[in-house]
């Protein structure tokens, strides 16, 4: 079995195949099976507790980080896995929300995660509310050292920003694209308005048009139950799923003029231009 992908930018990335919990009780004889870039991948823990993975007879480079498993399909990673210092920051609560399958390109999933414009419509009463639909101008910058994109100074009025929120809040956001199939969102922590919660989106591309989107929280929240926190994210992701699955085409066009953005889409424009400039084509229409 070989990966159905010729895009070196994706093959040389670290792609997730799900949370580590999926290998519990799995052995080489009875491994955890999943699909990555069109190939069946098997993952297990050997007797020493070390992660191992293969596709067909070929062993794969795999590591465990942030409670997730990461495979570099080419075996020659372009760089280290992105930094997520919030994962080990004292005082934060780490909650894994597991994944939701979505029949769409991973790039469209990430782009949707970066978009504030849809909050009042798709996530009404949670992340936004008509008529407060305006997306204030924010800043976009490319961090060339880390090869990441940032959107900063984003803010949005939200009626219910998280499970622990009891009133509306003018929420500050920062978005960070860490790789084509991954992003991190930072938003005002409702119980501690001086701090920012972090939400990681890790996309496992099964193929160019179907993915599992995993979500990891690093929150300042000592109040909510784990079920509530996970349930809130599943509600949000569940609201996004039908919208994403109805996007046509399922792959994301990168050239200007095919889908027309407006000022509030500056982050999406930067994301598409960044993908085009680095030659990413998997899940894209170049």
């Amino acid at each position, binding site marked *: 079995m070989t990966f159905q992908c010729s895009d070196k930018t994706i093959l040389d990335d670290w792609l997730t195949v799900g949370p580590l919990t999926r290998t519990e009780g799995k052995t080489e004889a009875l491994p955890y099976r999943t699909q990555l870039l069109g190939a069946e991948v098997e993952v297990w823990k050997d007797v020493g507790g070390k992660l191992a993975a293969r596709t067909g007879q070929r062993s794969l480079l795999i590591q465990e980080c942030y409670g997730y498993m990461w495979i570099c399909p080419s075996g020659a990673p372009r760089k280290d896995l992105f930094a997520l210092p*919030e994962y080990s*920051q004292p005082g934060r609560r780490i909650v894994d929300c597991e994944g939701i399958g979505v029949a769409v390109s991973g790039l469209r999933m990430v782009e949707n995660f970066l978009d504030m414009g849809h909050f009042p419509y798709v996530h009404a009463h949670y992340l936004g509310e008509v008529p407060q639909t305006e997306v204030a101008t924010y800043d976009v910058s490319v961090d060339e050292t880390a090869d990441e994109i*940032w959107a900063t100074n984003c803010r949005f009025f939200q009626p219910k920003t998280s499970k622990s929120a009891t009133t509306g809040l003018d929420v500050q956001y920062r978005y960070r694209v860490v790789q084509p199939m991954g992003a991190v969102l930072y938003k005002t922590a409702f119980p501690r308005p001086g701090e920012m919660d972090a939400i990681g989106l890790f996309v496992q591309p099964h193929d160019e048009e179907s993915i599992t989107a995993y979500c990891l929280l690093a929150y300042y929240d000592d109040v909510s139950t784990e079920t509530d926190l996970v349930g809130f994210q599943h509600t949000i992701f569940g609201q996004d799923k039908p919208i994403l699955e109805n996007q046509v085409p399922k792959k994301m066009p990168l050239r200007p*003029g095919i889908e027309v953005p407006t*000022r509030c889409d*500056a982050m999406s424009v930067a994301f598409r231009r960044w993908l085009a400039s680095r030659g990413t084509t998997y899940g894209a229409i170049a």
Partner: protein
Amino acid sequence: MSATRPFVVRRKWMTTPDVAAFELAPADDLAVPEIEPGAHVEFMIERAGQPPLVRHYSLCNAPGERDAFVFGIKLEPQSRGGSSWIHTLETGQTVKLGAVRNLFPLSQSARRHLLLAGGIGITPVLAMAQALEANSAEYQLHYFVRGEEHVAFRERLERAQAQGRLHVHTGLDAAGVRAVLADLLDGPAAGEHAYCCGPGFFMDTVDEVAQAKHWPEEGLHFERFQAAPVAADAIDDAFEVELSRSGTRCRVEVGQTIIQAMAAAGCEVITSCEQGVCGTCLTNVISGTPDHRDAYLSKAEREAGKLILPCVSRSKAPLLILDL
């Protein structure tokens, strides 16, 4: 971003109620470079979950003081993250510093030096005073503060004070500051240079008074860490656009976009978002300097000045020639 070097906070103390002083010693125990008076250093600010920031802070080192960098940093209530982060640093913590640069050097040809510091603007001026003191140069230091308790680094000012070169002006209002400056800047002596660092309004006042007193421009030095604010009505000017292929020229008025002016001249360009974000009207610049107002171009493209989004962007020069 230049190469960085780790430094350890060796000492931190409050030198005034809102200015923290720091001594940062190299983590490798090697000497810091010889520091010219007026120099500043890049401070790399890395905070979890936020893009890296680079901030520039003036050094207060005396000549030959090479075991640590000495800074004074005011906690700005309006801090965008730099000063408030630095104020949380404690002794023993490690920070990364980048290049040392000097955009505020002492004039080599000056025979007399007039040093003007407003508040936290004392930091580079202090390095200058210590260097001039060591060279037995002719100088006077005028230090404007809200009150006596806001005089920073008093221990480093003792020699200047003993020599009668330090003049502290406390609690003056804007008119009072202007009056003192008018007196100080009244006709420069031959070979006299003035150096000024402080809050924007303080430096603006020095600039205005010096101009009114016909102080020669080359004898006046400012250290500004913030770009001068652009007056709202000074943002836009009318300019001309020439389309190189057809030779058409048209004037772009204030309040009009290049695209609108071109359409009025009979030349249609395909546009879509008209907000400078979609990239549809991306055009090559043949000559001139674009004034970028879009959210599409990357930093490198912006700096190269070879591309423009004519639906929102304008021209910094009177004529812009486009490849249309």
